[in-house]
């Protein structure tokens, strides 16, 4: 099967078809000075905060207010955390294999590893 497809739908006009080359605009504004923030939302009391996305804001308060407007328009949250993206440290996906390897062969950590007689109900 060899389907050839080129969509020119949302966001898919090939550059050469658009007829315009990019020319940077003057000042570009000051928005690039606003740091990037990661947004975490608690959807209801009792649940964890969960990562939902990111946004730019001048400071933490603005980040929280913008996060409210962007990520909780339909009552998706009762609490918001924001943290500047640069403070997030992450494990390296290229080393994920070795890094998580120690857990792979320890199936005895799972309850299903143990075979018990049926009479031992609900353990």
């Amino acid at each position, binding site marked *: 099967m060899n389907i050839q*497809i*080129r969509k020119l*739908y949302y*966001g898919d006009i090939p550059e050469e078809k*658009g007829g315009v*080359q990019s020319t940077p605009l003057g000042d570009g504004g*000051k*928005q690039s000075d606003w740091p990037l923030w990661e947004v975490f939302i608690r959807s209801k009391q009792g649940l964890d905060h969960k990562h939902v996305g990111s946004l*730019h804001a001048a400071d933490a308060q603005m980040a929280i207010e913008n996060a409210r407007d962007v*990520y909780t328009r339909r009552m998706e949250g009762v609490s918001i955390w924001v943290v500047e993206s640069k403070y997030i440290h992450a494990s390296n996906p290229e080393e994920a294999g070795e890094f998580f390897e120690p857990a792979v062969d320890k199936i005895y950590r799972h309850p299903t590893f143990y075979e018990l007689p049926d009479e031992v109900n609900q353990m």
Partner: protein
Amino acid sequence: MDTFDLEKIFQEKIDGEIKIEPKDWMPDAYRKTNIRQVSQHAHSEIVGMLPEGNWISRAPSLKRKAILLAKVQDEAGHGLYLYSACETLGITREETINDLHSGKAKYSSIFNYPTLTWADMGAIGWLVDGAAILNQVMLTRTSYGPYARAMVRICKEESFHQRQGFEILLVLSKGSEEQIAMCQDAINRWWWPSLMMFGPHDSESTNSEQSMKWKIKRKTNDELRQNFVDMCAEQVKILGMKLPDDKLKWNDKKEHYDFGEIDWNEFWNVVKGNGPCNKQRLDARKKAWEEGAWVREAAAAYAEKRKARQQAA
């Protein structure tokens, strides 16, 4: 590990339906294609606010104003979800917005058509958002994780957009003679541009077999367009209106509707910047950006000042 191995691992992930995440290795062309597609999708949301924003102050009732305002605000939110997803690919927000303003990056051509009457708000919701939903539902399964997640969030919100549009038309279709005529007129003007939203015929397409292989896309233009026609041809009956196409006819053998040919000259003209509103739309975006500069500067200055005060304390 050399590039060959990395590409092999990458393709195996895609084939195994494992999503690609920002820090994963990916081929440059995959990154570039996604940047182009996601940013242009983001621009479509933001430019898409303009034709409707035009009607917020003129909506016929307080209820309709509130609804339209909420819908346009949603679109701003959708734009932001997508800009954020795009940034995870390593392009700055500033570059992305520059590309829109310089005309290098495109947005959906549909937004280069004018909104002449209130009925257009109905037709946009029903047809334009309807067409968008078909594409976006497909994209919830796209291979790049952040894009797929943004799409899931967007699709949840989009259904209200389409329903409110259809309801606007439904009310008009039961109204006075003038209202009925206005309803049909809006459908007439928006039908063909909506079909164009799906892009050229599959047979015309040349270069992105790759997008299918990488599972950025999962359905062809013509497949999605056919789905859309089949849906609308039925829904229009509920409105008691007609779609402006003499060739539209149920085909028993194919179990699909047959329909007429799109004016591809018009399509390419609008893409290249010669549509009725291209200039107006871009000017509006640039004006908003330039006139908003002082707000961005003031916010940055205020944040600086507050930080200095906190450090002093």
